[in-house]
């Protein structure tokens, strides 16, 4: 029923996304495209739409996993320093291996992302915060510390321009040949789905999870590895997408609950749909120019985020 509507919505949005852009490709011409139209479709439109779908799904599912791992609804890779740590990794590759391939960059970014996330989890455990609002705050502070370190180094080494490309998610530059790494997220999402039940059990908290015989530390590590890998891949190919990882899982949770086995797929679909819609807005709002999709995601996302916080506080 409702799940079906989301899926149909995603399909419609994805198809519309293919036919919106500076160069007009009317959908009616689909079966008799000229050479140039065909080139644009395959070279930029399809890569863009596909990467939007994957990035949206990945960001929201990563958020969903992080929320279960920390038992906190306001946590996502962008609020616990995962993304900032990955960016530090990219800076390191730019400084020391300037000719590194996109794959090497992702691997280094992944190592930094995982280390950063583990460090945050360790801090969280040491501090045992009573107030759930404090957890994302600690995460944002932690992320900002790493972020300002990145900015400082980048400034010193005159890499600010380069590094800021990774600050904002941007799909305008996605073209055939340099975005394919994002496909790596698909098997990661499948692994997450296979692991959904243990991840939900770990969301019950350490004591209950151990009582149920779950290897809590191992599941935490697997969950964080999935998130760090997926985040690094997304960061390297399209950039950071703020808020997506928080708002989508929270909205889905209101309607479908928190049994991840039931909600993971729908969270992924909703994330893709939301991101494609934001991207369409970003492309038409000052047509024929476009704004960064991050901007649209931030505006809509921050409003929804404040609303969710408000509702959470008044519960």
């Amino acid at each position, binding site marked *: 029923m409702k799940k079906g509507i989301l899926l149909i919505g995603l399909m419609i949005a994805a198809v519309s996304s293919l036919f919106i852009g500076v160069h007009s490709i009317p959908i009616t011409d689909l079966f008799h495209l000229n050479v140039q139209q065909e080139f644009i479709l395959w070279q930029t439109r399809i890569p863009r739409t596909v990467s939007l779908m994957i990035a949206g799904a990945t960001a929201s599912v990563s958020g969903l996993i992080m929320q279960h791992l920390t038992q906190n609804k306001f946590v996502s890779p962008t609020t616990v320093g995962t993304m900032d740590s990955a960016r530090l990794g990219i800076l390191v590759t730019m400084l020391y291996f300037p000719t590194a391939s996109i794959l090497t960059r992702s691997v280094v970014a992944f190592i930094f992302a995982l280390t950063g996330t583990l460090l945050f989890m360790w801090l969280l455990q040491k501090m045992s915060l009573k107030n759930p609002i404090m957890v994302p705050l600690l995460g944002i502070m932690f992320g900002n510390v790493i972020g300002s370190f990145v900015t400082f180094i980048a400034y010193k080494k005159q890499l600010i321009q380069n590094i800021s490309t990774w600050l904002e998610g941007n799909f305008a530059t996605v073209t055939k040949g340099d975005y394919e790494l994002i496909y790596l997220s698909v098997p990661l999402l499948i692994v997450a789905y296979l692991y959904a039940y243990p991840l939900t*059990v770990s969301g019950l908290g350490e004591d209950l999870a151990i009582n149920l015989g779950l290897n809590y530390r191992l599941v935490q590590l697997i969950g964080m590895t999935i998130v760090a890998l997926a985040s690094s891949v997304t960061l390297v190919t399209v950039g950071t997408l703020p808020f997506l990882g928080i708002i989508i899982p929270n909205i889905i949770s209101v309607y479908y*609950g928190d049994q991840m086995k039931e909600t993971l797929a729908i969270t992924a679909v909703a994330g893709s749909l939301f991101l494609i819609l934001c991207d369409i807005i970003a492309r038409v709002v000052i047509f024929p120019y476009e704004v960064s999709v991050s901007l649209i995601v931030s505006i809509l996302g921050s409003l929804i985020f404040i609303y969710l916080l408000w509702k959470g506080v008044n519960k």
Partner: protein
Amino acid sequence: MYIQNVSKTYRQKEVVQEVNLKLSEHKLTAFIGPNGAGKSTLLSMMSRLLEKDCGDIYISGNEITTFKSKELAKKLAILKQSNQIDLVLTVRELVSFGRFPYSQGRLTEEDHRLIEEALHYLGLDNLADRQINELSGGQLQRVYIAMILAQDTDYILLDEPLNNLDMSYAAQLMKVLRRLVDEKGKTVVIVLHDINFASSYADEIVAMKAGQVVYHDITEQVIQKPVLDELYEMNIQVCELAGKRFCLYFNE
């Protein structure tokens, strides 16, 4: 269940000191004693939630650390005092987690049967599809007990389950635990603060003070004025009413 020479030190303070204890099977044993006596710490060690510094704990003849966590979860269940689950789950979903040690999430016919049985046993039939964040504290506590019941273990350990429950819910819960022992032959170990609950429902009482077991006997032997006065360092009056002993510990 045997406990042999078990100790635990926290920041140079020995919270549990060389405890030796043999708990009776198929009985309801209550742990009582003043705050900081080490009751909860001992319970956590008995259920491998907390690592012990030294000593051994045996259940059905085997030391608990030799069990695989999943296997132990089929023998022993623990419920700690604070379970703040910030998840939107239905009562049935939460109770279903009790079957995790057996089916790892792929529920079988047998699992479903035991889940429904646990729900029914705790009178949760008509709450089964409600969300847990809509429940009262007493109802939620019953849901946790149902989960532990679905876990189908011989041993059930509970750390202050009556906290935040009103008198009616607390008494109801104790009756359920009593039934688990009498009807299903479970071994229930429970940390209690209110000695009157211990006096009314427990078969045996373990009294702890400053990290040590000071008494372990059947309830009638422990609920005695000299014993309790010394244990709590208070003036406690013990009186009998309708065949049960009651303790009056309000300062006059």
